[in-house]
Every structure is written in C-alpha cells, then in structure tokens.
C-alpha cells in the first residue's frame, strides 16, 4: 500500500460540460506532501476533485491514487482516503456519538479512540446536535471524521473557506501533524492562497479548466516575480516576456515567470518578490495582456 511515488497521478483528465471543459488536466501529488490546488471560483477545482473521486463520469484521462487505478480499485482506494467538503454532509439531528456509530461500520480501519481524541481536542460537545454547531465546529467534526480511519490521503475541497483565522490556523496545524507520517499526503483545493502559502509543498494553478502551473511552491515563488517600471519603460520592453501587466496611475507592474533572466534583461526595472495570490491574479488576466 505504501509502495508508490505519487499519492495522486492525474493524466489528461477531461470532462466536458455545456459551456465548460476540464481540459487535459495533468498533475501529481507526491507522497508525503501537501499540494495546494488553486484557482478562482468556477476554475474547475471541484470538478477535478469530483472526477478524481469518481463522483462524476470523466470523458477522458486516467487517475491513479495510492498507486492504484481509481476506477478498478475504487473500493480499496476509498478505504484509504478521506474527503473533506466545504460543508459538513451530515443531518443536523445527529450528535458526535451518533456520527461515530454510523462511521465505524463504514470504514474497516475506523478508530474510535482517535475519533474521540480529536473530538476532545477540538472541544466538541458530545451530546449537542450538529445543527447547533457553528461552522468552525462543523468543519472540525468533519476533519475528526476524516482523520479517524487511518487514511493515507486527504482530499479537501474548499475546506477552510468561510472559517475565521483562528480556526483555520488550528486546522492547518492538524494537517501539518498529519503529514508527520511520511506516507500521508494532502490535496487541498482553496482560493485562500495565504493558507497554502503557509503549508503547501507544491501548488497547481487551474483556470478555466486548464492547468496553468504546477510544481513545488518554492520553485514557483522563486521563478516568478513582479517587475515595476514606468509606462515609458514598459513601452520599450518585449511584451511576450510577461505573463500579464497591471497598469495604474503609479506605474506598471509586470509578472514574469523567469525572474532570474528578466532581472538581467531589465536592470532598470524594480524587481519584487511575489505571492501565490499575485501569481494567480496575473495568470487569470493573462489573456487581457494589460489590465487595470
């Protein structure tokens, strides 16, 4: 079960909808790492995750999870993965104990001690109905459920969206703890790039159903950068050197994907480090070239 290089391997994943196509999506999540899956709303993150989990039919491509084909070995894979959605998918009438009774027969490796351990750690009330829980408590419960059956892979779809910074930070710590076991991996889809900047080892950018960038976070952050200049300086620059350019009253900011060479090519420009959020913003606007 642990003899694989990548926790997830997606090759040429395609799904066509009326007005949207998930186009030839290819990326891998290395074992023992956490990958941030970034994109704006409607970019195709949830569709990709649903296709990986076989919740939707795919029109093409292959998906390997934990070294196994995701269709042929679906049941075995699902025994060893955990999925966290943006909303707790449980009825409001249940309490923590009811959830334990339901889940312990669903997963072979369900560990009550671990589950109640997380419940205690998160300070969740045992007898209170889920309907009376706050959003943060519901998410904590979902994470407790996800981490209580010895899953080797955690797939999260916008799990931290809508949570306050304190709860988010608490949850991110849990994920880092989970990754202490080098056989565990996480795929975390989010549009809150600051969270991923904190904990992700690698990131994949998706926009309009296409993968724009995928790789180690540090490599992406070091290869990308912002060059700031005046409008006149920009007029003389080669436009194809930049991903996209933001024009404002104060000057021009250009995102480039080869910062090392660009610094040499444009020594008069001011070079700035960038963030995942800025990279996402400039890539999303790449078709516009110059934007305001």
């Amino acid at each position: 079960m642990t003899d694989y290089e990548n926790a997830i391997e997606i090759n040429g994943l395609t799904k066509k909808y009326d007005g949207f196509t998930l186009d030839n999506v290819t990326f891998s999540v290395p074992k023992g790492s956490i990958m941030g899956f970034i994109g704006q709303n409607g970019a195709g993150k949830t569709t990709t995750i649903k296709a990986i989990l076989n919740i939707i039919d795919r029109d093409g491509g292959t998906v390997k999870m934990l070294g196994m084909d995701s269709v042929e070995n679906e049941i075995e894979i699902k025994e060893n993965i955990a999925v966290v959605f943006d909303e707790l998918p449980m009825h409001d009438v249940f309490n923590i104990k009811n959830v334990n009774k339901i889940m312990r027969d669903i997963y072979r490796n369900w560990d009550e001690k671990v589950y109640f351990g997380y419940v205690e750690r998160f300070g969740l009330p045992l007898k209170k109905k889920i309907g009376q829980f706050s959003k943060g408590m519901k998410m904590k419960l979902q994470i407790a459920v996800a981490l209580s059956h010895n899953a080797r892979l955690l797939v999260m779809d916008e799990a931290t969206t809508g949570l306050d910074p304190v709860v988010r930070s608490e949850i991110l710590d849990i994920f880092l703890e989970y990754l202490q076991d080098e056989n565990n991996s996480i795929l975390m889809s989010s549009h809150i790039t600051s969270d991923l900047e904190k904990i992700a080892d690698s990131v994949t950018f998706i926009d309009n159903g296409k993968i724009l960038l995928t790789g180690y976070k540090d490599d992406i952050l070091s290869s990308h950068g912002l060059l700031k200049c005046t409008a006149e300086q920009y007029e003389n620059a080669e436009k194809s050197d930049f991903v996209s350019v933001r024009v404002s009253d104060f000057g021009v900011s250009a995102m480039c994907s080869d910062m090392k060479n660009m610094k040499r090519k444009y020594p008069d420009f001011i070079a700035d480090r960038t963030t995942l959020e800025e990279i996402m913003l400039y890539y999303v606007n790449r078709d516009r070239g110059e934007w305001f």
Partner: protein
Amino acid sequence: MRKGLVYREIFLNKKKYITGIVIYFSLIFVGVLIRMSMNFGNLAKIDEEIFKILDKYICYIFTMITPAVLVLSLMGRHNITASDYKTGWQKFSHTFPISAVENSLYITAMSVCGFIIALVLSMINLFMFFAICGQKVNTFVVKAVILITCSFGMMIVFEDILVYIFKKVTTAQIVAGIFVVSADVIVTLLLAKSMKDYMKKVGHTAEEINEDINLVNDMTNYIISVAKKTFDICVAVMPLIMVVAFVVFYLFVRRVFRRREK
C-alpha cells in the same frame, strides 16, 4: 450489510416509526372502547338492526385503515433521500468504500422489512378485531388487507423512486398525486363502462333505471359482481407486482449509486 447505515436509517425515520406505532395502538384502543360501549355501554341500547350494521362497519373500518397507516409510517425514505441530497450526504457517500450493490441492498431491505412488518401487524389487527367483534374472519377481508397493504406499499416505493429522480419531496409528491388521480379516473371510467354494459344487457335507458328501484338494485349487484372479479384478479396479481416493484426499486437505487453525476 453495514449496521451503521441501518442505524442511520432508523435514527432518521425514528419519528415516523413512533408516530405510526402510536396511531396503530390508538386505533386499537378506540376500536376496543367502541366495542366495549356496544357490549356494556350506551351503544348496547341501540336498535338491533343498526347494531349489526355498526358492528360490521367498525370491524371493517378499523381493519382497513390500519394497513394504510402502518405502511405509510414503516415504509419509505423519501424525506431521508431528499435531505441526503440537500445535506450533501449523497455526494459524501460516493467517497465511502461501499459498493453500489451494498448501498442499494440495505435501502431496499429496509423498505421490504417495513412492508412485511406492516403486513404482519395488519393481519394481527384484523384477527384481533374480528375476534373482539365475535365475527368470523372471511377471505374477503384478508384479501382486502393484502390489497390495501400492497397498494400503499407500491405507492411508497413509487414515491421513493420519484424522490431519487427529482431530489425534492414536494415535486415527487405532486407527480405521485397525478398518478393516483389518473388511477382514480381509470377506475371511474371502468365503473361507467360496466354501467353502460348493464344498460345494453337489459335494454333500458338510464332514466328508466333511475325510476325503477329493482333495476337500480340489479345494476348495483351487476357492478359489484364485476368489481369482485376485478378484485380477485387484483389480489392475485398485487403481491407479484409488489415483488416486481421492490426489484425495480433495488435496480433503480443501484443505478443511482452507480451512475455518476453528469
């Protein structure tokens, strides 16, 4: 079968089960009270002819209502299905290491168990009421109880399938209602046809029949004989249709769990 999922099903249907059982025992209680009043109370003083009719009707009413009440409360998961879609459980269940066959098996098994329990309790109720009334159980009532249980059972299975299709209880109930009304229309048309057949047979017009009480009685007997024949056919066929309904339900649910979202 996963005990956890069965536990979840029972937990979510708990209120419905309790309501059904409470109504069931209330019916028995009310029936026994009326019967006691007929033996020892004020109702014992009424006219002998009326007493006989009342005695018969009480037996019939109480034994015919019970199967409907029991089936409606012990079978069916339309509320669970709709809220499974609403809460995201349906999507979540696709991430479980459970096959479509296993998922659909437990859902169908719950429905079958509900139906069997409803039928058994209805039969117990039937024999009990007839014993209290001091009457002999005839095959007609037994057949009627089977027919009512199966009819309501089929309606519930049909509604459950509709909720899987529309994902909303109200829409499913509207569609089911349209089907029930259509069935009523068909029965009315059949009744009208048998009246027309009778008129053809005796060579009288409707006005002539209305004026002659003997012809009215004769026509009523004719329609009853046609209804009895249809009733016998229905009773023979209904349990088979019920089995087919459960098989269709199982295959449908399996398809729902196998088929991915579009």
